[in-house]
């Protein structure tokens, strides 16, 4: 989230799209209702009517996978009706920047597309630069090559008729949402967008969110109280685990994983450190070498020296463009190319698409270490229904892990608050924390490499690795310490003392930090700030519920990102009654500003979007794989053969794998005419491995069901409560029919399209509850993130003669 949970209460309009907040982030809804009670309009745009819809002012059903058409229509509406916040758009966004002539758009494709490689040459989307290499601008927004005009032209195609035709939303409903939301273009009004996996789990997931960002920038909703782009992140610490990037393509702190072409540290920095020649651009990532070198210093300790590139040479390097995400990992496993591995607290046999293939792929492993609190479809895959365990060669370990109340440590909530939790009780039996196991295991591996010869032992023996796991010690290492006696401003720090803020991190090896964004969370001056429980606020902070003294928040305790966009060029808030920051008597008050520079009008200021190279909010996003503007493309499995915006049916860059088990339905496939979307229930958690083992939760939601409209049920001869079979090109699942008006038939291009919805939390280790819904979903993903398209695929449904999975 650019903002935080409590801040939702400051909104005047709330658009919940791609999320069912009331059921999946129930306590977040406290703040949605708080806003509503003060007059905010709450809108829910989602295929299914849920408890979120019930408490919203209105619910608008749309067909899964058509969010960009819906949002593109709103961009068009705002520009056409002149609803945007012009000063904000001109001063703080890249709307006024001129784009070079090579950029173009035709027949659904941007310039530079290579159909064989399914990739774009993104250099064709560059900005025009002046002689000083600063982007050229036209503040009048009239130049035909300025971003604003290109954007206007691009979205002029998203007419109410065409958007309605493809999304299934009536024109009246479109206008109702567009009108209510675009009212937040007034300088003192705030609109927030709340989304979750309903936007990310598409082959156009990133561009769904880009479209939202464009709207928020047009309306001046970024950086303000009650605004922002707010991902309602699921999972207990998924914000923190993303910050520490348990992901193949990054290292902690959102820095690129080294590739083979960057053989030296200098190569790495040259390729990854952005340069801006605009004196008004902070270009914060120019500091990356300080953060990256401090990370290396944290990893390799005394063994990281200037002479050895701080150990950079020891790191693994991937090939440029190589993809090591789930879809590709399991495809390689299916092909027998993977030998063994670790699955910590995760149930991919239920929660990754095409479960039938994945379950078979795991049989090819020689060894597998699983770590969990319960048995799951993953830990016990070797004895799954229909398989003779004697035929499965894998050596499997199941290590019992401690649960939340049984350990100390921190998690980071969706609003970036880092929160300490205390150990209450000992873990049961011999269960231990992940940290304990990992430290012991790695120390054992280190012993083996010390006592025996082995392949390239250096990185294993030279890491700075603790003897035992201690959360407090790790929190200090994450924050970072000085490695030599250092003076910061007038203050002296001894070797080993904590670094006060990432501003003090250096690239010369004098500091270490395992995550630069967390630097400042644990200091000599204030101790471990994640333990703070002080509700104290100034009246200005209290007016928006900022709580700056409660716990700590990255970066540098800034509660609302890009907050200098909430003030005018003189530093005065656009919305004085809910000011985030304000320039008063030569300094900023309120939240921690994005950099302490004075207001822009002084001539000494910096553009507020400090993490972008040029300092502007990006309507035009030349870094994305499939284009600088979001464009509507159909899901890979779609019930239509064409759409009104171009002849390019699907995202031209989506990623996929192609084993004999990765079968896809044709567009408008008569065998699979129904759209399936997947979601979860309040009482269960993701793949369900944890919550199905809690009797009271299982009792509340005991088995797999499928929600369908009465119209579809009648067409198929299905009654409420009947056992049914749902089939896709990849697999089948049994479920109980829940016939409900919560699902509506949608009129798409003049024809009725039915959509059904199923939770994915049930699995065979809970007998009679049903089995993985993801046996139906396809292994296709977004080209930027490789997140799979769980939210839209094609199926058929029929009444079951008999049931074997459901009791």
């Amino acid at each position: 989230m650019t903002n935080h949970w409590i801040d939702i209460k400051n909104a005047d309009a709330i658009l919940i799209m791609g999320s069912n907040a009331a059921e999946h982030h129930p306590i977040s809804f406290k703040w949605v209702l708080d806003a509503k009670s003060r007059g905010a309009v709450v809108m829910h745009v989602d295929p299914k009517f849920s408890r979120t819809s019930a408490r919203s002012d209105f619910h608008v059903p749309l067909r899964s996978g058509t969010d960009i058409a819906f949002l593109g229509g709103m961009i068009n509406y705002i520009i056409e009706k002149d609803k945007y916040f012009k000063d904000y758009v001109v001063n703080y966004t890249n709307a006024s920047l001129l784009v070079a002539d090579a950029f173009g758009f035709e027949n659904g494709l941007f310039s530079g597309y290579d159909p064989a490689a399914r990739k774009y040459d993104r250099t064709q989307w560059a900005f025009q630069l002046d002689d000083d290499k600063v982007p050229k601008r036209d503040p009048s927004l009239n130049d035909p090559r300025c971003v604003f005009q290109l954007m206007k032209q691009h979205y002029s195609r998203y007419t109410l008729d065409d958007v309605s035709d493809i999304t299934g939303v009536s024109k009246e409903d479109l206008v109702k949402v567009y009108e209510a939301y675009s009212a937040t273009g007034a300088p003192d009004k705030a609109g927030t967008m709340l989304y979750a996996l309903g936007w990310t789990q598409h082959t156009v997931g990133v561009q769904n969110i880009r479209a939202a960002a464009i709207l928020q920038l047009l309306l001046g909703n970024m950086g303000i109280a009650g605004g922002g782009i707010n991902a309602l992140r699921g999972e207990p610490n998924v914000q923190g685990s993303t910050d520490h990037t348990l992901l193949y393509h990054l290292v902690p702190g959102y820095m690129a994983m080294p590739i083979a072409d960057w053989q030296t540290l200098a190569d790495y920095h040259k390729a990854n450190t952005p340069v801006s020649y605009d004196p008004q651009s902070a270009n914060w990532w120019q500091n990356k070498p300080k953060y990256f070198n401090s990370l290396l210093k944290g990893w390799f300790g005394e063994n990281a020296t200037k002479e050895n590139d701080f150990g950079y040479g020891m790191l693994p390097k991937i090939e440029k463009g190589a993809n090591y995400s789930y879809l590709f990992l399991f495809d390689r496993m299916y092909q027998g190319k993977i030998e063994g591995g670790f699955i910590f607290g995760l149930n991919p046999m239920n929660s990754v698409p095409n479960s039938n293939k994945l379950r078979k792929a795991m049989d090819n492993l020689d060894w597998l270490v699983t770590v969990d609190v319960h048995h799951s479809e993953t830990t016990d895959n070797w004895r799954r229904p229909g398989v003779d365990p004697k035929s499965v060669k894998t050596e499997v370990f199941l290590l019992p892990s401690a649960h939340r109340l049984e350990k100390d440590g921190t998690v980071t909530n969706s609003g970036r608050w880092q929160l300490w939790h205390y150990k209450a009780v000992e873990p049961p039996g011999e269960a231990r924390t992940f940290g304990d196991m990992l430290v012991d295991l790695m120390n054992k591996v280190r012993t083996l490499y010390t006592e025996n010869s082995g392949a390239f032992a250096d990185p294993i023996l030279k890491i700075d690795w603790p003897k035992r796991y201690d959360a407090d010690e790790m929190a200090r290492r994450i924050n970072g310490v000085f490695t030599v006696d250092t003076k910061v401003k007038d203050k002296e720090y001894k070797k080993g003392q904590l670094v006060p803020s990432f501003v003090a991190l250096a690239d010369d090896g004098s500091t270490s930090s395992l995550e630069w964004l967390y630097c400042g969370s644990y200091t000599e001056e204030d101790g471990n700030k994640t333990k703070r429980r002080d509700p104290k606020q100034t009246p200005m902070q209290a007016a928006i519920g900022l709580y700056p003294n409660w716990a700590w928040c990255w970066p540098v305790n800034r509660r609302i990102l890009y907050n200098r966009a909430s003030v005018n060029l003189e530093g005065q808030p656009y919305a004085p009654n809910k000011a985030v920051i304000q320039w008063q008597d030569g300094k900023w008050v309120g939240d921690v500003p994005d950099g302490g520079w004075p207001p822009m009008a002084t001539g000494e200021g910096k553009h507020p979007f400090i993490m972008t190279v040029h300092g502007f909010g990006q309507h035009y996003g030349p870094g994305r794989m499939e284009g600088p503007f979001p464009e509507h493309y159909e899901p890979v499995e779609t019930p239509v053969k064409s759409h009104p915006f171009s002849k390019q049916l699907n995202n031209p860059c989506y990623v996929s794998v192609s084993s004999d088990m990765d079968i896809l339905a044709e567009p408008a496939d008569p065998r699979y005419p129904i759209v399936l979307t997947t979601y979860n229930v309040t009482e269960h958690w993701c793949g369900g491995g944890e919550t199905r083992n809690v009797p009271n939760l299982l009792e509340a939601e005991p088995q797999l069901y499928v929600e369908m409209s009465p119209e579809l049920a009648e067409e198929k001869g299905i009654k409420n409560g009947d056992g049914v079979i749902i089939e896709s090109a990849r697999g089948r699942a049994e479920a109980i029919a829940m016939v409900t008006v919560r699902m509506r038939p949608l009129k798409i291009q003049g024809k009725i399209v039915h959509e059904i919805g199923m939770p994915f939390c049930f699995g065979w280790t809970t007998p009679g509850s049903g089995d993985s819904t993801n046996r139906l979903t396809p292994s296709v993903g977004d080209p930027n993130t490789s997140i799979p398209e769980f939210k839209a695929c094609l199926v058929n449904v029929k009444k079951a003669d008999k049931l074997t999975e459901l009791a």
Partner: protein
Amino acid sequence: MQLNRRDFMKVTGAGIACLSLSQLGFDLKPLKAYAAELKIAGAKEVISVCPFCSVSCHIIAHVKDGQLVSTEGDPDYPINQGALCAKGAAMLSLTRSSHRVTKPLYRAPNSDKWEEKDWGWVIDRIARRVKESRDKNLQLTNTKGQTVNRLEHVFALGTSHMDNEECALTHQAMRALGVVHMDHQARI
């Protein structure tokens, strides 16, 4: 004297504070008698965070004689203000569930059952399997002759259930081994 709900509970919880009844201004005898029978009477309060979605509601765990006796929402935490959803409210049964795995388990190749093992044995066995796979498969250079030091044959998946401190260690360990197939819940 002003008391919020939480101060009130602290004051009335037996064994925590002994204020005279006159300080509260009304007769608490019946309430005190009831409180003395509550299972949380005399329990230690420990602050934790709900282990489900990233609203990260705060939970108070009540611990007595080393045993978890109750969990409830933390009314002081400004985000959830004491409220919990169905999952958060099930924290007590989740933690104390009889379905928990409590011993390291091992399933030998082609076997049809789990066997209980001790920690020393499993850690040693896993370390040896890691080393064998790494020694056999570590790729030091690519076809262009560039140094790559990567281990493609071993993977690590998970987990957002780890604390930040554990995530940092996992990343460090896996990159030291050369692991590149690394992914977790953030991508699904």
